[in-house]
Protein backbone atom coordinates (compact mmCIF):
# COMPACT_ATOMS: atom_id res chain seq x y z
CA UNK A 1 0.00 0.00 0.00
CA UNK A 2 3.09 2.16 -0.07
CA UNK A 3 2.56 2.73 -3.75
CA UNK A 4 -0.94 4.02 -3.02
CA UNK A 5 0.33 6.67 -0.69
CA UNK A 6 2.90 7.74 -3.24
CA UNK A 7 0.23 7.91 -5.92
CA UNK A 8 -2.10 9.81 -3.61
CA UNK A 9 0.64 12.29 -2.71
CA UNK A 10 1.61 12.60 -6.33
CA UNK A 11 -2.01 13.11 -7.30
CA UNK A 12 -2.46 15.79 -4.67
CA UNK A 13 0.38 17.83 -6.11
CA UNK A 14 -0.56 17.45 -9.75
CA UNK A 15 -1.33 20.79 -11.42
CA UNK A 16 -4.88 19.60 -12.05
CA UNK A 17 -5.69 19.25 -8.36
CA UNK A 18 -3.76 22.38 -7.45
CA UNK A 19 -5.73 24.50 -9.90
CA UNK A 20 -8.94 23.12 -8.43
CA UNK A 21 -7.71 24.12 -4.99
CA UNK A 22 -6.73 27.54 -6.30
CA UNK A 23 -10.29 27.99 -7.54
CA UNK A 24 -11.79 26.96 -4.19
CA UNK A 25 -9.41 29.26 -2.33
CA UNK A 26 -10.16 32.20 -4.63
CA UNK A 27 -13.88 31.69 -4.11
CA UNK A 28 -13.50 31.52 -0.35
CA UNK A 29 -11.39 34.67 -0.36
CA UNK A 30 -14.17 36.33 -2.40
CA UNK A 31 -11.78 37.14 -5.22
CA UNK A 32 -13.58 38.27 -8.37
CA UNK A 33 -11.64 35.74 -10.43
CA UNK A 34 -14.07 34.09 -12.80
CA UNK A 35 -14.14 32.23 -16.09
CA UNK A 36 -16.74 33.63 -18.49
CA UNK A 37 -19.69 31.31 -18.94
CA UNK A 38 -19.04 30.92 -22.69
CA UNK A 39 -15.41 29.93 -22.06
CA UNK A 40 -16.40 27.43 -19.39
CA UNK A 41 -18.88 25.87 -21.82
CA UNK A 42 -16.23 25.92 -24.53
CA UNK A 43 -13.78 24.08 -22.27
CA UNK A 44 -16.38 21.48 -21.43
CA UNK A 45 -17.22 21.00 -25.13
CA UNK A 46 -13.52 20.50 -25.79
CA UNK A 47 -13.21 17.86 -23.08
CA UNK A 48 -16.27 15.90 -24.24
CA UNK A 49 -15.11 16.14 -27.85
CA UNK A 50 -11.63 14.94 -26.97
CA UNK A 51 -12.45 12.06 -24.65
CA UNK A 52 -15.31 10.83 -26.82
CA UNK A 53 -13.06 10.79 -29.86
CA UNK A 54 -10.16 9.14 -28.06
CA UNK A 55 -12.46 6.45 -26.68
CA UNK A 56 -13.79 5.73 -30.16
CA UNK A 57 -10.33 5.53 -31.69
CA UNK A 58 -9.25 3.16 -28.97
CA UNK A 59 -12.20 0.88 -29.73
CA UNK A 60 -11.28 1.03 -33.42
CA UNK A 61 -7.74 0.02 -32.48
CA UNK A 62 -8.44 -2.80 -30.09
CA UNK A 63 -11.57 -4.11 -31.76
CA UNK A 64 -14.84 -4.56 -29.95
CA UNK A 65 -14.43 -6.50 -26.83
CA UNK A 66 -17.16 -9.08 -26.28
CA UNK A 67 -17.79 -7.37 -22.97
CA UNK A 68 -18.73 -4.05 -24.55
CA UNK A 69 -22.45 -4.71 -24.63
CA UNK A 70 -22.42 -6.27 -21.20
CA UNK A 71 -20.56 -3.27 -19.80
CA UNK A 72 -23.13 -0.90 -21.25
CA UNK A 73 -25.95 -2.93 -19.74
CA UNK A 74 -24.19 -3.18 -16.40
CA UNK A 75 -23.62 0.58 -16.39
CA UNK A 76 -27.29 1.20 -17.02
CA UNK A 77 -28.35 -1.15 -14.25
CA UNK A 78 -25.91 0.46 -11.80
CA UNK A 79 -27.25 3.90 -12.69
CA UNK A 80 -30.78 2.65 -11.97
CA UNK A 81 -29.90 0.99 -8.69
CA UNK A 82 -27.42 3.31 -7.03
CA UNK A 83 -30.07 5.98 -6.35
CA UNK A 84 -32.05 3.45 -4.32
CA UNK A 85 -29.03 2.79 -2.16
CA UNK A 86 -28.33 6.52 -1.88
CA UNK A 87 -31.93 7.20 -0.91
CA UNK A 88 -31.90 4.55 1.81
CA UNK A 89 -28.63 5.92 3.15
CA UNK A 90 -29.93 9.48 3.16
CA UNK A 91 -33.08 8.53 5.00
CA UNK A 92 -30.96 6.77 7.59
CA UNK A 93 -28.20 9.34 7.94
CA UNK A 94 -29.96 12.69 7.43
CA UNK A 95 -33.27 14.42 7.93
CA UNK A 96 -33.81 15.37 4.33
CA UNK A 97 -37.39 15.35 3.09
CA UNK A 98 -38.35 12.61 0.63
CA UNK A 99 -38.15 15.03 -2.26
CA UNK A 100 -34.72 16.35 -1.33
CA UNK A 101 -33.39 12.88 -0.63
CA UNK A 102 -34.69 11.56 -3.93
CA UNK A 103 -33.18 14.48 -5.81
CA UNK A 104 -29.79 13.92 -4.19
CA UNK A 105 -30.03 10.18 -4.83
CA UNK A 106 -30.53 10.80 -8.54
CA UNK A 107 -27.22 12.66 -8.70
CA UNK A 108 -25.27 9.73 -7.27
CA UNK A 109 -26.61 7.20 -9.72
CA UNK A 110 -25.50 9.39 -12.57
CA UNK A 111 -21.89 10.37 -13.29
CA UNK A 112 -19.46 13.27 -13.43
CA UNK A 113 -17.52 13.34 -16.65
CA UNK A 114 -14.63 15.41 -15.25
CA UNK A 115 -14.09 12.90 -12.50
CA UNK A 116 -14.00 10.27 -15.23
CA UNK A 117 -11.43 12.31 -17.16
CA UNK A 118 -9.28 12.78 -14.06
CA UNK A 119 -9.37 9.04 -13.39
CA UNK A 120 -8.39 8.36 -17.00
CA UNK A 121 -5.37 10.63 -16.56
CA UNK A 122 -4.36 8.86 -13.39
CA UNK A 123 -4.85 5.48 -15.04
CA UNK A 124 -2.66 6.47 -17.96
CA UNK A 125 0.12 7.81 -15.77
CA UNK A 126 -0.04 4.59 -13.77
CA UNK A 127 0.61 2.70 -16.99
CA UNK A 128 -2.89 1.28 -17.27
CA UNK A 129 -4.77 1.18 -20.52
CA UNK A 130 -8.50 1.21 -19.83
CA UNK A 131 -11.00 -0.10 -22.34
CA UNK A 132 -11.89 2.71 -24.79
CA UNK A 133 -15.59 1.96 -24.58
CA UNK A 134 -15.71 3.06 -20.95
CA UNK A 135 -16.57 6.45 -22.47
CA UNK A 136 -19.73 4.91 -23.85
CA UNK A 137 -20.45 3.37 -20.46
CA UNK A 138 -20.15 6.85 -18.97
CA UNK A 139 -22.69 8.12 -21.50
CA UNK A 140 -25.28 5.43 -20.77
CA UNK A 141 -24.95 5.99 -17.03
CA UNK A 142 -25.97 9.65 -17.22
CA UNK A 143 -29.71 9.31 -17.56
CA UNK A 144 -31.21 6.18 -15.90
CA UNK A 145 -30.59 7.56 -12.41
CA UNK A 146 -32.96 10.42 -13.15
CA UNK A 147 -35.82 8.03 -13.83
CA UNK A 148 -34.90 6.20 -10.67
CA UNK A 149 -35.12 9.38 -8.63
CA UNK A 150 -38.52 10.20 -10.07
CA UNK A 151 -39.71 6.68 -9.39
CA UNK A 152 -38.57 7.04 -5.77
CA UNK A 153 -40.61 10.22 -5.43
CA UNK A 154 -43.68 8.57 -6.94
CA UNK A 155 -43.26 5.58 -4.64
CA UNK A 156 -42.34 7.23 -1.34
CA UNK A 157 -43.31 10.89 -1.67
CA UNK A 158 -46.64 12.61 -1.26
CA UNK A 159 -46.10 14.88 -4.20
CA UNK A 160 -45.69 13.55 -7.72
CA UNK A 161 -42.80 14.36 -10.01
CA UNK A 162 -43.49 16.32 -13.14
CA UNK A 163 -42.82 13.51 -15.59
CA UNK A 164 -44.00 15.05 -18.83
CA UNK A 165 -43.09 13.34 -22.06
CA UNK A 166 -40.65 16.05 -23.09
CA UNK A 167 -38.39 15.39 -20.16
CA UNK A 168 -37.11 11.93 -21.08
CA UNK A 169 -36.28 12.98 -24.60
CA UNK A 170 -34.55 16.04 -23.19
CA UNK A 171 -32.47 13.95 -20.80
CA UNK A 172 -31.46 11.37 -23.38
CA UNK A 173 -30.59 13.97 -25.98
CA UNK A 174 -28.89 16.44 -23.70
CA UNK A 175 -25.95 18.13 -25.32
CA UNK A 176 -23.21 16.40 -23.31
CA UNK A 177 -24.46 12.92 -24.11
CA UNK A 178 -24.92 13.69 -27.79
CA UNK A 179 -21.45 15.21 -28.12
CA UNK A 180 -19.76 12.45 -26.13
CA UNK A 181 -21.46 9.65 -28.01
CA UNK A 182 -21.16 11.44 -31.35
CA UNK A 183 -17.44 12.04 -30.94
CA UNK A 184 -17.05 8.43 -29.78
CA UNK A 185 -18.76 7.09 -32.89
CA UNK A 186 -16.77 9.40 -35.16
CA UNK A 187 -13.54 8.33 -33.47
CA UNK A 188 -14.55 4.73 -33.97
CA UNK A 189 -15.33 5.27 -37.67
CA UNK A 190 -12.24 7.26 -38.51
CA UNK A 191 -9.84 5.40 -36.25
CA UNK A 192 -6.15 6.12 -36.32
CA UNK A 193 -6.37 8.07 -39.54
CA UNK A 194 -8.82 10.48 -37.97
CA UNK A 195 -6.74 10.63 -34.82
CA UNK A 196 -3.66 11.63 -36.77
CA UNK A 197 -5.55 14.60 -38.22
CA UNK A 198 -6.76 16.03 -34.95
CA UNK A 199 -4.34 14.63 -32.38
CA UNK A 200 -2.44 17.92 -31.96
CA UNK A 201 -5.74 19.50 -30.99
CA UNK A 202 -7.14 16.88 -28.64
CA UNK A 203 -4.04 15.24 -27.16
CA UNK A 204 -1.15 17.60 -26.53
CA UNK A 205 -3.08 20.50 -24.97
CA UNK A 206 -5.55 18.26 -23.11
CA UNK A 207 -3.98 18.39 -19.65
CA UNK A 208 -3.60 22.16 -19.82
CA UNK A 209 -7.23 22.66 -20.76
CA UNK A 210 -8.20 20.33 -17.96
CA UNK A 211 -6.29 22.53 -15.49
CA UNK A 212 -8.26 25.59 -16.58
CA UNK A 213 -11.48 23.65 -16.40
CA UNK A 214 -10.73 22.49 -12.88
CA UNK A 215 -9.89 26.03 -11.88
CA UNK A 216 -13.42 26.92 -12.95
CA UNK A 217 -14.90 23.93 -11.14
CA UNK A 218 -13.01 25.01 -8.04
CA UNK A 219 -14.43 28.51 -8.30
CA UNK A 220 -17.97 27.19 -8.64
CA UNK A 221 -17.57 24.57 -5.93
CA UNK A 222 -16.00 27.11 -3.59
CA UNK A 223 -18.71 29.68 -4.18
CA UNK A 224 -21.34 27.00 -3.66
CA UNK A 225 -19.76 25.82 -0.42
CA UNK A 226 -19.42 29.35 0.88
CA UNK A 227 -23.04 30.14 0.26
CA UNK A 228 -24.51 26.82 1.31
CA UNK A 229 -22.62 26.22 4.53
CA UNK A 230 -25.92 26.38 6.38
CA UNK A 231 -27.42 23.37 4.59
CA UNK A 232 -24.40 21.18 5.18
CA UNK A 233 -25.14 19.09 8.26
CA UNK A 234 -22.60 16.51 9.50
CA UNK A 235 -24.93 13.78 8.24
CA UNK A 236 -24.94 15.21 4.74
CA UNK A 237 -21.20 15.69 4.79
CA UNK A 238 -20.71 12.06 5.83
CA UNK A 239 -23.04 10.92 3.08
CA UNK A 240 -21.03 12.88 0.53
CA UNK A 241 -17.94 10.85 1.43
CA UNK A 242 -19.43 7.45 2.22
CA UNK A 243 -21.69 7.21 -0.79
CA UNK A 244 -18.89 7.47 -3.38
CA UNK A 245 -16.93 4.77 -1.56
CA UNK A 246 -19.95 2.47 -1.53
CA UNK A 247 -20.61 3.30 -5.17
CA UNK A 248 -17.00 2.50 -6.00
CA UNK A 249 -17.50 -0.86 -4.27
CA UNK A 250 -20.39 -1.66 -6.59
CA UNK A 251 -18.34 -0.46 -9.53
CA UNK A 252 -15.53 -2.74 -8.44
CA UNK A 253 -17.78 -5.75 -8.24
CA UNK A 254 -19.32 -5.03 -11.62
CA UNK A 255 -15.99 -4.41 -13.28
CA UNK A 256 -14.52 -7.62 -11.93
CA UNK A 257 -17.57 -9.68 -12.87
CA UNK A 258 -17.23 -8.30 -16.39
CA UNK A 259 -13.57 -9.21 -16.37
CA UNK A 260 -12.36 -5.72 -17.26
CA UNK A 261 -8.72 -4.73 -17.16
CA UNK A 262 -7.52 -2.94 -14.00
CA UNK A 263 -7.86 0.37 -15.86
CA UNK A 264 -11.43 -0.48 -16.83
CA UNK A 265 -12.24 -1.49 -13.27
CA UNK A 266 -10.82 1.77 -11.99
CA UNK A 267 -13.04 3.71 -14.40
CA UNK A 268 -16.11 1.68 -13.49
CA UNK A 269 -15.44 2.40 -9.83
CA UNK A 270 -15.00 6.06 -10.57
CA UNK A 271 -18.20 6.29 -12.59
CA UNK A 272 -20.18 4.62 -9.85
CA UNK A 273 -18.50 6.80 -7.22
CA UNK A 274 -19.03 10.11 -8.98
CA UNK A 275 -22.11 12.31 -8.85
CA UNK A 276 -23.61 14.38 -11.66
CA UNK A 277 -23.51 18.17 -11.52
CA UNK A 278 -24.89 19.14 -14.93
CA UNK A 279 -27.46 16.81 -16.42
CA UNK A 280 -29.18 15.72 -13.22
CA UNK A 281 -29.49 19.18 -11.61
CA UNK A 282 -31.09 20.48 -14.80
CA UNK A 283 -33.56 17.61 -14.88
CA UNK A 284 -34.36 18.05 -11.18
CA UNK A 285 -35.15 21.74 -11.65
CA UNK A 286 -37.74 20.73 -14.20
CA UNK A 287 -39.20 17.63 -12.61
CA UNK A 288 -38.75 18.28 -8.89
CA UNK A 289 -38.74 22.06 -8.55
CA UNK A 290 -39.52 21.73 -4.84
CA UNK A 291 -36.21 20.03 -4.13
CA UNK A 292 -33.59 22.43 -2.81
CA UNK A 293 -30.81 22.85 -5.36
CA UNK A 294 -28.25 24.04 -2.86
CA UNK A 295 -28.38 20.64 -1.14
CA UNK A 296 -27.73 18.53 -4.20
CA UNK A 297 -25.28 20.91 -5.83
CA UNK A 298 -23.27 21.39 -2.67
CA UNK A 299 -23.07 17.68 -2.03
CA UNK A 300 -22.19 16.73 -5.56
CA UNK A 301 -19.82 19.57 -6.45
CA UNK A 302 -18.62 20.68 -3.04
CA UNK A 303 -18.08 17.37 -1.24
CA UNK A 304 -18.10 14.32 -3.48
CA UNK A 305 -16.30 15.82 -6.45
CA UNK A 306 -13.29 17.05 -4.44
CA UNK A 307 -13.25 13.85 -2.42
CA UNK A 308 -13.06 11.68 -5.53
CA UNK A 309 -10.53 13.97 -7.17
CA UNK A 310 -8.11 14.04 -4.29
CA UNK A 311 -8.51 10.86 -2.23
CA UNK A 312 -11.05 8.69 -3.99
CA UNK A 313 -9.32 8.03 -7.29
CA UNK A 314 -5.94 7.03 -5.78
CA UNK A 315 -7.75 4.64 -3.43
CA UNK A 316 -9.82 3.17 -6.26
CA UNK A 317 -6.62 2.77 -8.27
CA UNK A 318 -4.88 0.93 -5.47
CA UNK A 319 -7.86 -1.37 -4.99
CA UNK A 320 -8.30 -1.98 -8.72
CA UNK A 321 -4.62 -2.78 -9.07
CA UNK A 322 -4.63 -5.07 -6.06
CA UNK A 323 -7.77 -7.02 -6.97
CA UNK A 324 -8.01 -6.82 -10.75
CA UNK A 325 -4.35 -6.41 -11.60
CA UNK A 326 -1.64 -8.97 -12.26
Amino acid at each position, binding site marked *: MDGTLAIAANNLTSPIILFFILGVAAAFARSDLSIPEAIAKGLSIYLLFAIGFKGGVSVADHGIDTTLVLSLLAGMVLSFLLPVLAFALLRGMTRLSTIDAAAVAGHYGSISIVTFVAATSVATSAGLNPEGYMVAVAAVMEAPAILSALWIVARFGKQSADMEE*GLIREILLNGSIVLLVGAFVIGWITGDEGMQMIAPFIQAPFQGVLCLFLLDMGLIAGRGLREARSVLTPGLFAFGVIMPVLGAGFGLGTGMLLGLSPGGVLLFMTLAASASYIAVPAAMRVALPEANPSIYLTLSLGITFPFNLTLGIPIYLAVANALAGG
Partner: protein
Amino acid sequence: MQTHKAKRVDIIIEAVMEKRLTNALHKAEVTGYTVLPVLAGSGRSGQWTREGEIGRAGGMVNVSCIVRPERVDPLLDAAFAVVERHIGVVSVVDCEVLRAERF
Protein backbone atom coordinates in the same frame (compact mmCIF):
# COMPACT_ATOMS: atom_id res chain seq x y z
CA MET B 1 -46.97 59.51 -33.81
CA GLN B 2 -50.01 57.24 -33.46
CA THR B 3 -49.64 54.73 -30.64
CA HIS B 4 -51.91 52.02 -29.27
CA LYS B 5 -52.53 50.71 -25.80
CA ALA B 6 -50.93 47.38 -24.97
CA LYS B 7 -49.52 45.43 -22.03
CA ARG B 8 -46.01 44.23 -21.55
CA VAL B 9 -45.69 41.05 -19.50
CA ASP B 10 -42.23 40.12 -18.17
CA ILE B 11 -41.65 36.61 -16.93
CA ILE B 12 -38.39 35.81 -15.13
CA ILE B 13 -37.99 32.07 -15.18
CA GLU B 14 -35.32 29.37 -14.97
CA ALA B 15 -33.56 28.76 -18.25
CA VAL B 16 -34.47 25.07 -18.13
CA MET B 17 -38.13 26.10 -18.24
CA GLU B 18 -37.82 28.53 -21.15
CA LYS B 19 -38.85 26.09 -23.85
CA ARG B 20 -41.81 24.93 -21.78
CA LEU B 21 -42.93 28.50 -21.25
CA THR B 22 -42.64 29.52 -24.89
CA ASN B 23 -44.47 26.35 -25.93
CA ALA B 24 -47.26 27.24 -23.54
CA LEU B 25 -47.33 30.79 -24.94
CA HIS B 26 -47.61 29.45 -28.49
CA LYS B 27 -50.47 27.21 -27.39
CA ALA B 28 -52.20 30.26 -25.92
CA GLU B 29 -51.64 31.95 -29.30
CA VAL B 30 -49.10 34.39 -27.93
CA THR B 31 -46.56 34.16 -30.73
CA GLY B 32 -44.65 37.37 -30.12
CA TYR B 33 -42.05 37.47 -27.36
CA THR B 34 -38.44 38.34 -26.74
CA VAL B 35 -36.04 36.49 -24.44
CA LEU B 36 -33.45 38.57 -22.59
CA PRO B 37 -30.48 36.96 -20.84
CA VAL B 38 -30.17 37.37 -17.07
CA LEU B 39 -26.78 37.71 -15.42
CA ALA B 40 -27.53 37.24 -11.78
CA GLY B 41 -30.34 37.57 -9.31
CA SER B 42 -31.58 37.25 -5.81
CA GLY B 43 -34.86 36.19 -4.31
CA ARG B 44 -36.40 34.00 -1.69
CA SER B 45 -34.35 31.06 -2.90
CA GLY B 46 -31.10 32.98 -2.45
CA GLN B 47 -28.58 34.63 -4.72
CA TRP B 48 -27.09 33.23 -7.89
CA THR B 49 -24.83 34.35 -10.69
CA ARG B 50 -24.08 33.10 -14.14
CA GLU B 51 -20.29 33.41 -13.93
CA GLY B 52 -18.43 30.21 -14.49
CA GLU B 53 -21.58 28.17 -14.89
CA ILE B 54 -21.26 25.05 -16.94
CA GLY B 55 -24.72 23.63 -17.01
CA ARG B 56 -28.11 25.09 -17.56
CA ALA B 57 -29.35 24.21 -14.15
CA GLY B 58 -28.79 27.55 -12.51
CA GLY B 59 -29.47 30.39 -14.91
CA MET B 60 -32.63 32.35 -15.56
CA VAL B 61 -34.03 34.28 -18.49
CA ASN B 62 -36.50 37.11 -18.90
CA VAL B 63 -39.30 36.49 -21.40
CA SER B 64 -41.08 39.71 -22.45
CA CYS B 65 -44.36 39.63 -24.34
CA ILE B 66 -46.22 42.65 -25.59
CA VAL B 67 -49.90 41.92 -26.18
CA ARG B 68 -53.15 43.74 -26.75
CA PRO B 69 -54.84 44.39 -23.37
CA GLU B 70 -57.56 41.82 -23.93
CA ARG B 71 -54.94 39.11 -24.48
CA VAL B 72 -53.32 39.56 -21.07
CA ASP B 73 -55.53 37.15 -19.21
CA PRO B 74 -55.01 34.11 -21.42
CA LEU B 75 -51.30 34.94 -21.43
CA LEU B 76 -51.13 35.06 -17.64
CA ASP B 77 -53.08 31.84 -17.34
CA ALA B 78 -50.69 30.08 -19.70
CA ALA B 79 -47.63 31.52 -17.99
CA PHE B 80 -48.91 30.76 -14.53
CA ALA B 81 -49.50 27.10 -15.36
CA VAL B 82 -45.81 26.84 -16.18
CA VAL B 83 -44.28 28.92 -13.40
CA GLU B 84 -46.67 27.74 -10.71
CA ARG B 85 -44.37 25.23 -9.05
CA HIS B 86 -41.23 27.10 -10.03
CA ILE B 87 -39.29 30.07 -8.78
CA GLY B 88 -39.55 33.28 -10.76
CA VAL B 89 -41.52 36.46 -11.14
CA VAL B 90 -44.33 37.64 -13.44
CA SER B 91 -45.06 41.34 -13.87
CA VAL B 92 -47.32 43.38 -16.14
CA VAL B 93 -46.87 46.97 -17.28
CA ASP B 94 -49.13 49.26 -19.30
CA CYS B 95 -47.48 50.41 -22.48
CA GLU B 96 -48.16 51.90 -25.86
CA VAL B 97 -46.94 50.48 -29.13
CA LEU B 98 -46.34 51.60 -32.67
CA ARG B 99 -47.66 49.44 -35.50
CA ALA B 100 -50.54 47.91 -33.55
CA GLU B 101 -51.38 45.60 -36.45
CA ARG B 102 -48.39 43.53 -35.40
CA PHE B 103 -49.86 42.42 -32.06
